C-alpha cells in the first residue's frame, strides 16, 4: 500500500464515521431523553416532584429553552458575522484586537454573572434580558471563525477577483464569504451548543427555560426532577449540534465538500 492510499483510506474512513455520527446522534438524543423521561415517570412521584414533572411544565420549559436558544442564535449571527467581516477589512485591522478582546472577556466571564449584571444594569427581564447577555457570552466562536475564515483565503484569489474587474464588495460576496462559510458554520455550531447550555441560566432573570426544572430539582433535593431537566438540556444540545453538523454539510460551498 502506498502512502497516498493510506491517506485516501483514512479520509473515507473518517467520512464514513462522520456519516454514521450524523445518523446516530439524533437517535442517541431521543433515546437519552426518552429513557430518562420513562424512568422519571415510572417513579413514585411526590407532590413536590409533580409540580415540575408534568407534561405541561416540561413542554413549556423545553419550548422556552428553544426560544432562548433561537434568540441567542439570531443575535450571534446578526452581530458576529457582519462584525467579523468588517474587522477583516484593511482599514479596520488596527481595531480588530479591541473587539476580539471584548468578545473574549464575554466568553471568559462566568455566564451567570453576565446575565445577572445585565439585568441589574438595564432592569429588563424576560426572554431578551436573558438572550442578549447570553449572546455576548457565546459570540466569540462565530466572530473569530468569521475573521479566520476570511483571513485564511489565499490573497491570490482575491487579487484574481479584483483583476477580472470585480468590485471589493463583489469579491466579498462571490469569493471571500463562500470560502469562509465552512469555518463560520463550525463557529456557529460551537456557539449554539454554548447557548443551549447557558440558556439554563435564563431562569434567574425570568427568562424561563429548563433551568427552572434543574434549579428547583436541586434546591428541594428531588434528584428525579434535577436529572430530567438536565437530560432534556443535554438532548437539546445534541440535537442542536446535529443541526449544526447538517448545516456544515449541506450549506458549505459545493466545491469544498
Amino acid at each position, binding site marked *: 500500500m502506498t502512502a497516498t492510499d493510506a491517506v485516501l483510506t483514512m479520509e473515507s474512513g473518517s467520512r464514513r464515521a462522520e456519516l454514521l455520527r450524523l445518523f446516530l446522534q439524533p437517535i442517541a438524543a431521543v433515546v437519552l431523553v426518552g429513557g430518562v423521561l420513562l424512568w422519571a415517570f415510572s417513579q413514585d412521584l411526590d407532590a413536590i416532584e409533580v409540580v415540575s414533572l408534568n407534561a405541561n411544565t416540561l413542554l413549556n420549559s423545553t419550548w422556552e429553552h428553544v426560544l432562548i436558544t433561537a434568540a441567542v442564535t439570531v443575535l450571534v449571527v446578526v452581530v458576529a458575522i457582519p462584525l467579523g467581516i468588517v474587522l477583516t477589512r484593511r482599514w479596520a485591522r488596527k481595531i480588530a484586537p479591541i473587539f476580539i478582546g471584548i468578545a473574549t472577556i464575554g466568553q471568559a466571564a462566568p455566564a451567570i454573572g453576565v446575565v445577572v449584571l445585565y*439585568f441589574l444594569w438595564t432592569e429588563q427581564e424576560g426572554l431578551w434580558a436573558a438572550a442578549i447577555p447570553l449572546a455576548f457570552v457565546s459570540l466569540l466562536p462565530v466572530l473569530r471563525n468569521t475573521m479566520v475564515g476570511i483571513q485564511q483565503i489565499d490573497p491570490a484569489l482575491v487579487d484574481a477577483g479584483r483583476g477580472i474587474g470585480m468590485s471589493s464588495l463583489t469579491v466579498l460576496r462571490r469569493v471571500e464569504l463562500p470560502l469562509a462559510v465552512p469555518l463560520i458554520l463550525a463557529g456557529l455550531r460551537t456557539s449554539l451548543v454554548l447557548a443551549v447550555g447557558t440558556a439554563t441560566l435564563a431562569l434567574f432573570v425570568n427568562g424561563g427555560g429548563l433551568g427552572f426544572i434543574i434549579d428547583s430539582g436541586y*434546591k428541594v433535593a428531588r434528584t428525579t426532577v434535577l436529572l430530567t431537566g438536565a437530560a432534556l438540556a443535554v438532548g437539546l444540545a445534541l440535537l442542536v449540534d446535529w443541526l449544526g453538523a447538517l448545516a456544515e454539510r449541506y450549506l458549505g460551498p459545493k466545491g469544498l465538500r
Partner: protein
Amino acid sequence: MKRLLALLATCALLGGCGLEAGYKLPFEVAPGSIKPEPTLKDVSIRVGSKNFTEQILLAYIAEVALAAAGADIEDLSNIQGSPAVRQALEVGDVDLYWEYTGTSWINFQQETEPIPDEKAQYDAVKKADLERFGIAWLNYSPVNDKYAFATTKEFAEQHGLKTMSDMVALLQQDPSLGTFCMESEFISRQDGLLGAEQKYNYDVPQRNIKTFGVGAIYATLAAGNTCNFGEVFTTDGRILTLDLTVLEDDKKTFPQYNAAVTVRKDFLDRYPAIAEVLEPVSAALNNDIILELSVKIDGAGEDPAVVARDWLVKEGFVTIPKT
C-alpha cells in the same frame, strides 16, 4: 506527570480534595459566661454553613463560642447549596452546621406537608433525622427564617397593606397589581406559593409570576418596575437596607424555619459539651439580632467573624483576651 499522579494519590488518601481547606479564626477569644470545657480542649471541630450571610454569621457565632470553650476550630463556612452542606455533614467532612427545621423536613426527610407549630415541627424533624440519618439536633433557636411576601414601603403605605390578607383584598379589587417575583424552589414547594394560594384563597395567574434567582428578587422588588410583591426571607438584611415591608402571614401558611445546630450523633456522644456551649447562645438569638448583624455585614461590609465575636462579647458569652 508523576507529580500530578502523586497529587491525585494524596487527594485520594485525604478522602477527596473538596473540603480540606478549612480556615482558622482570625483572632483569639477568651472565656466569658462560656467556661473552658476540659472535654473540648484542642478538639478539632469543623463548622460548615450554607452560602448566605445569615448562615455564615451563625457559623462564626458557633465557632467563636466553641473556640472560647477551648476547641480547635476549622472554619468551613460558605459551602454552595444546602444539599452540599448536608452531604458534608453526613459523610463527616464537617462536624456541625446550622440547619432549619423546615428545610430538613422537606428536603432531607423528603416530606411534602409541613407542620404548622414550630415546636411540633422541630420535634418531628429531630426524631426523623436521628432515626434515619443519625443526625442529632440541638435545641432550636427563636431565629425563624421564614418565607414571606414583601413589597416596597411606598407601595405598602399607598395601599394600606400590613398583612397577606390585606394584599389579597387589594388584588381581588385590582388583579393587575398582583405581579410577583419568586424563585423556582418557592414555586415547586407545597408549602410555598401553592400553600399560600390555598390558605388565602387567591390564585396568582401564571403570567403574573416572574421567576428570578433568589438574590435578584430584593433589588428587583425595590426598583419597583417588574413586580409589586416578592418572595423574601424574613431574616434577610436587605429588607432593612432596601426599605422593604414584610407582609404578616396572618393565616400562618408558611412553614417554620427555626435554626438549630445539627451534628452527627456519634460526634455529639463523644463531645456532649458542644450542646452545653451552643444551646444558651442559640437561645439568645432572634430574628431582630440576625437582621441587625446581617446589615452590618451586607450593608457596612464588616467581617462576619468580627461581627459574630462582637455580639458574643456584648452578650457576655466570650471576652476579648488582654494582650
